[in-house]
């Protein structure tokens, strides 16, 4: 049986939901960060699936943009995480709730 478009979309929805749930329930910054990456990649999967379905390369181009932004975001995000850890010796986001380091 040929893989259908809906399969890809379903998989992507599942990955995205896992990502969202992770962001909301996890306290560890690293884990939240990974969940955000998961959401981004779920969206990437959708793009690729639609690009293939519609035979339109634009979707694939968009994926590259998302990956670029994600890489930049990762650099900044990891930097912030390191700064938080150096100050607080902890990666629990609920402790970082007073708008200053």
């Amino acid at each position, binding site marked *: 049986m040929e893989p259908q478009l809906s399969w890809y979309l379903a998989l992507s929805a599942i990955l995205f939901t896992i990502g969202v749930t992770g962001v909301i329930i*996890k306290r560890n910054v690293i884990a939240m960060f990974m969940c955000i990456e998961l959401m981004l990649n779920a969206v990437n999967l959708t793009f690729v699936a639609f690009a293939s379905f519609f035979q339109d390369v634009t979707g694939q181009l968009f994926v590259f943009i998302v990956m670029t932004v994600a890489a930049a975001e990762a650099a900044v995000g990891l930097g912030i995480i390191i700064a938080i850890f150096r100050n607080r010796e902890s990666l629990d986001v609920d402790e970082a709730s007073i708008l200053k380091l």
Partner: protein
Amino acid sequence: MENNILSLIIFAPLAGAAINWFIGRRVRDERFIGIVACGSVAISAVVAFYLAFMSGGALRTTTPVLDHIWTWLQVGNFRADFALGMDRLSGTYALFITFVGFLIHVFAVGYMHGEAGFYRFFACLNLFMFSMLTLVLADNFVLMFVGWEGVGLCSYLLIGYYFDKKEAGDAAKKAFITNRIGDWGFVLGIMLTFFVTGSVSFFANPAAGEAAHTALSFFRNQPVETFTAGAIFAGGATSIAVLLFIGAAGKSAQIPLYVWLPDAMAGPTPVSALIHAATMVTAGVYMIVRCSEIFVHAPTAMLIVAIIGAATALFAATIGLAQNDIKKVLAYSTISQLGYMFLACGVGAFIPAIFHVITHAFFKALLFLGSGSVIHGMHHEQDMRRMGGLKKYMPITFATMVTGWLAISGVPIFAGFFSKDEILWRTWSAPAFSLPSPGFSKFLWAIGALTAFLTAVYMTRMMVMTFWGKERFRDAHDSKHQEPDHHHGSVEPHESPWLMTVPLIVLAVLSTVGGFIGIPYALSSRDINVIEHTLEPVVATAGASPVAHAAVVPEGEHDAAAVTEAAHATHSSEELNAERTLAGVSVLIALLGIGAGWYMFQKRPLLQMPRLLENKYYVDEAYDAALIHPIEAGSREGLWKIIDMGVIDGLLHSIGEVVQEMGRLARYMQAGFVRGYAAIILVGALILIGVFAYLGFPGV
């Protein structure tokens, strides 16, 4: 006829003002400032005389001298140029303004000697000359209004010259604000004129490509409006005339807007002489005579002018009887004489009104300058109760003021006699077209005659209190000796320097012989009424039917001989006899007035006058109670406490409170927990998706 040096008349004083303001304030040399100020006015005077009397000049032909400087406003068919026009009327005005103005400038150089604001005074005085000449020479209503406001501004600046005195500052504000009420009427009148006629110009100027008719010539072939009160609100000539008269009443200090003029005496005396006696306050008369074409089509407005003029003349004369400040006497006298001029306008005697403006400019400027000389010689004492016996100390001032006194009282030979007598005669014989009943002209004449009597009385009182009798200034000085900040040196009055006495002498000569330009036919049996012949072509005739008028005046071209013959034809022998009798009566009135004044005040110069008169009928108090206090109270209780503090501040405060309250609620969303924010974003996204899912995507 175009002649570009006409603009020099107005721009020379403007240049003088600029030089004195920017350079004079640094040089601080009285000789430099005085020469610049007087010189610029002298240039104006020379140019004015040249343009008036050169061959083909404004007073020798009936074609005005025009000078189109630039096109100022042009919107649709509305057109107002910065253009000047000198015809016989504005030429006459320009002549006496520049000449009397020059004399007063010279006088002021002596009078203002040693003042700290010397340069400021002369800059303002020159600016005033610029504004006044713009007003007079303007070729259209809008430019005239510019001059009109300009003289108001300069009047404000000069009344408030001693701005460190509260009295002077208040008087300046009072003059400015009272004039605003009049200007309101003037502006509306200009608008209505344009609305009705489609033009604001006075002179037809084909070269500039204007409308076929001017604002004034439009009315020439219109029927005379009905003589009813309803015509005032009909939006035609009568409405325009009434609105213009409101403007004139403000500028020329007529009831009920006269209250600013007595207070304006807080300014230096040359200002009182130039602005508040000789020139600015007669601008209203000029405007009405300029618009005589409108007024002769508006009998209702003419009646209003006549009644207000007569009432003002009598009212101010009675107040003048009881004033003790020498300048206040002259101020009320000025209001009274202006009332005369408006009475003349109201009965259609426009030329005698202008004649009286000119003679009044001579003798009232003389009297004011004479009072300035007295004040100067008395070390800034203005109260006549502390004068007396000055004729020994100030012989030149005394002699010149005597001529002014005789002139204003209406003694024959002197200038005031001819103009005043002419006004009284023309009032007596006024055409019936603007009068409710034929006897009404006799009633107006009676008021005029009574005013003439009172004028002679109060002027005699002023002269007696100042120049005759016991010398009271020493007593006054002794009682004032305790005052620490009194001037040092001699209290003896002294004669003024030549800079001040020479203008007095020139004006005294003019006050004596100035009336000879208007000797009526009845008194000379010869046709030597120069002023009448000069102004006849430019002034409309009251009561003439439009058809007859058009026949006498074909297309504005005047046949001087025809006009003169027409004038001769009106001299029937009964009329001549009546005019001669009335002239005799007015001489009698003048002499009686002087006699009564002499009899009453020679022995008792300090005679207590009725309190009601001394307190000016409590008009200022009544205005305070009726207008100013309600406005103040309304502003404080209503505008400030309710509108400003309640509505405006309240609105701003409640906006602030709403924002604060919303912020307080929104603060709960900002707990600081990252996961909370993520949850809010999620909920928002779900709501958004839900909305789209429920409503469908737009366009899909």
